[in-house]
Each structure stands twice: as structure tokens, then as C-alpha cells.
């Protein structure tokens, strides 16, 4: 579904991604784990068109999308949940969701998807008229995910959904990611919480200072000594 081939991305002067390649197949949950500053978010931003690769190709459904504007990419079915939630805080929950469907025109479909989001996240339904800035961190994360789902993505890019959340909420968020995936959305998940990410993923990549250093099935990586030592707390 998505094939990234040897891309180089610069953040100003910083060479953030070096020769990165990765692949996501339809229906999978793929996770990208790595420390702060390894280039995880940069990779997602490149995929969603917020950054442009200097070199290399990004193929999505066999179409080159690297360097295309974000609007075109969202329209093609890739939706990005940015790091740190970034909800539109003075707008109500409902208005946030409506903006998620900004590029769509099918009123009926939008209505249906909104109902679906409220089903996935019942708390959002209860708070639909509330300004989203007044939601808790976990609720905002759910809203950010719901908003991205409103674009009806085939591929959902999630940037650290567990950031700054209580363990119980993290568990819930990951359950929902699994549900979303079961409903037919492919997921590329960027995480620092390697344990959690590997527990729901099919395959995984490990990124270190802009380079992919390891890849394999989630199970393989969970058992890899290298990963255990560096990301799973050596247990």
C-alpha cells in the first residue's frame, strides 16, 4: 500500500532522515519505534505532505506522493494525527470533527462517519458541544484521532498517541487503534512506548538518528536482545 524508498529529508539544515525505506501493507498495523529526535515524526510529516523529501520516492497505491501538497495526500486517503494532539481548542468537539471532513462533500457519508466516531469514542458524543480545549488530555487524543478518521482514511498515521497520558488511558487508546484497524484502516503508528506499540502491531521498524536500524515482525522485535536492551527496559 505504502512504499517508502530511500528518502532523505532535511529539517532546515538538519539531515533528519537518511536513506529511509519502509513498507506498509494493506490491513496491517506497522509501528515505528525510536527515541526522541530519531526522526519518527519527520517521517510521518513527510508521508502526509507537511515536509518534502530531498530525494527518494514515496509510493502510495503505486502513485508517487513524495513532495505533493498535503491536500492532495489527504484526498488520496492518508490522514495524519499530529504529535501532541493539536485540537482546535476554541471550537467544539463537533466542529473539530467537521473540519476533519473538510475535503469531503458527501453529507450523508460525513454524518455516518461522525456517528461511527461517536460510537468508537462515546465520551466525544457526550461532549460534542463542549469547546475541545476543555477536554482532558486523553479525550483530546481521542478527538484528534476521531478528527483524522473523519477524512475517511485508508491509511492512518498516528504520532505518539500515548504521549503524556495515564497508563489506563493509553491502554484504552491502543484498544481503539486496534478496533479502527479491524474496521479496515491500515495504521502506521509512531511510538516511544515500544512495549505497547509492539503488542498491537504486526510489523515494526526501529529508527535511530534518522536511519532504520532494525525491522521485522512485532514478535521478532519483542524478542530481539537489541530492542529489549534499548527500548523495553531490558526485561
Amino acid at each position, binding site marked *: 500500500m505504502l512504499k517508502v524508498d530511500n528518502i532523505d529529508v532535511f529539517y532546515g539544515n538538519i539531515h533528519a532522515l537518511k536513506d529511509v525505506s519502509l513498507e506498509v501493507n494493506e490491513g496491517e498495523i506497522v509501528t515505528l519505534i525510536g527515541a526522541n529526535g530519531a526522526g519518527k515524526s519527520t517521517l510521518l510529516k513527510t508521508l502526509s505532505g*507537511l515536509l518534502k523529501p530531498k530525494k527518494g520516492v514515496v509510493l502510495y497505491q503505486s502513485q508517487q506522493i513524495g513532495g505533493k501538497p498535503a491536500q492532495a495526500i*489527504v484526498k488520496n486517503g492518508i490522514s495524519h*494525527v499530529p504529535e501532541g494532539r493539536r485540537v*482546535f481548542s*476554541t471550537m467544539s468537539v463537533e466542529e473539530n470533527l467537521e473540519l*476533519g471532513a*473538510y475535503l469531503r462533500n458527501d453529507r450523508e457519508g460525513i454524518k455516518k462517519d461522525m456517528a461511527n466516531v461517536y460510537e468508537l469514542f462515546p465520551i466525544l458524543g457526550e461532549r460534542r458541544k463542549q469547546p475541545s480545549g476543555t477536554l482532558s488530555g486523553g479525550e483530546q487524543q481521542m478527538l484528534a484521532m476521531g478528527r483524522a478518521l473523519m477524512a475517511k482514511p485508508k491509511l492512518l498515521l498516528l504520532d505518539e498517541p500515548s504521549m503524556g497520558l495515564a497508563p489506563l488511558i493509553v491502554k484504552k487508546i491502543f484498544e481503539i487503534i486496534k478496533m479502527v484497524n479491524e474496521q479496515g484502516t491500515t495504521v502506521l503508528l509512531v511510538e516511544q512506548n515500544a512495549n505497547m506499540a509492539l503488542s498491537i502491531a504486526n510489523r515494526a521498524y526501529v529508527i535511530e538518528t534518522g536511519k532504520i536500524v532494525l525491522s521485522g515482525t512485532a514478535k521478532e522485535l519483542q524478542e530481539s536482545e537489541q530492542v529489549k536492551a534499548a527500548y523495553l527496559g531490558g526485561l
Partner: protein
Amino acid sequence: MKKSKAFWVFSVLALVIYAVVQGLISVGILDLYYQNILVQMCINIMLAVSLHIIIGITGQFSIGHAGFMAVGAYFSAIATMKLGLPLPVGLLIGAGVAALAGLLVGIPTLRLKGDYLAIATLGFAEIIRIIFLNVDYVGGAAGMVITNMTTWTYAFVSVVITILVIANFTNSRHGRAAISIREDEIASDAMGINTTYYKVVAFAIGSLFAGLAGGIFAHNFFIIQPTTFGFLKSFDILIYVVLGGLGSLSGAAIAAIFLTIVSSYLAEYPETRMIIYSLVLIIVMLYRPSGLMGTKEITSLFKFGKKGGSQK
């Protein structure tokens, strides 16, 4: 369809205000002095509301608004005085050229953010002012002599049009997209919203109505001079928007009305005028740190079309 309800309420209200004021003028209660204050009020509301769409809605911190007002003032004056066109045509020309100037300034500068954008817009406004200062065709530093043609009716109709267009923009899908840029530009980008496009559009609409206000202003007095449109004027407009509450159209309008009244009342005490004016500003900001209205609209107080028609 709540939006149209607010629209009708506003239209009826505007008609009533117009009828009452016109009535008072015709029986002679409102003399020329008060009429002049009313026209100034209209001009200031237009300036405030047109800057509101740039700063309050789209979140782009522009502090060069007087520059676009100058463009509107000078070009409408050229149209009426030099080319002999009627005032409405002159106003349209002034507004149109100001919108073009907005596009011209907006396209390169709106990549900048926050403080950098503010400095760039300030610089552009000064450039515009200096250009008028050095063109003899429009009188240079001595200014341009203009016949007084603005009436209360012209000013009022312009205000109503300004408010209707900007309120409609805000409540539309496009307005929502523009607000999302103010709230979080990265998320807005990620939703597939063309943020550059909306920033430029908001900037051009704001410049257009600043130009209209400039045209009304130019024909309200007998002379316009480049010094009138310096950065102090830009700051005056900025004050209306901030005092009213960033993000509130009615707030910007109320602040413009309030400060026009305060400043014309204080005109009788020239020695202490600026001191009292500043004190009023400080007191308001101390007690209402997010402005008179915050981000709320006056309509939401009466529950007409709550939040500008958020439910369809």
C-alpha cells in the same frame, strides 16, 4: 439554518438604527458635529472589523493596516478628484486597489509567522506611506485636497456591507478553515486545508474593507496627508481588535464605537486626552484580559444563532 436568522436580525437592526439616526438628523437633533462622530465611528468599525478577519479569525498578526487604508483613501480620491468619477465608483476603485495591495503584500509575507509577520507588515505600510509622500501627483507631504462627499448614509451602508460580508465568511466552511489556522496551523495543514490560500484570502478581504474605510475617510474631510496613515493609525486599529477580544467581530465593533466616543469626548480636554485614553485602555485590559468580548459574539448572549450557527 440558524445563520440566516442572525443575518435577518442583523439586517432589521441595521435598518432600525439607520431609520432612527436619519430621523434624528432630519429633525435637527443630531447636528453636523454628531454626524461627523457617527461617520468616524463607521470608519473605525470598518477598520476594526477588517483587521479582525486577519488577526482575530485567521490569526495572522498584521500591524500595517493603515497602509491599506491609505491605498483606499488615495485611490478613491484620485478617482473622484482627478478623474471626476462619482463617489461610489471611487470607493469601489479604492477598495479594489487596496485588495490588490493586500494580495501583493500577503503572498510573500504570509509565510512568516508571529513577530516576523508583524514587522514585515509594518514595513510594508510604511513603504506605502512613503510612496504617497513622494508622489507629487497626489500632493506629496502637503496632502491632497478633496471635496467633502461622504454622508452618514454612505458610511452606514459601507459598515453594513463590511459586517455582513465578514460575518458570512466567518460562518462559512471557509471561515471555519481560517479559524483552524489560528487555532493550530500544523493540524490545519494536516486536515488538508490549504493554509496559505486562506491566509492570503483573509488578508485580501481585510485589505479590501480597510480600503473602503479609507475611501470614506478621504471624502469626509477636506484633505488627506500621508502622515495620517502612519503606524500610530495602525496601532489604533489594532487596539480596537485587541480590546474587543481577539476573535470576536462584535467585540471589535463595540470597541471601535466605545473608543470613538471616548476619544471624541476627550477632544474637549486636549492636555489630558492621551493620559485618560491610555488609562481607559489599561483598565479595560486589567479587568477583561481577553478583551471585552473574549472570542464570543454578542449574538451568543441573546442565543440568536449561537456560536454563529454552529449547528446546521
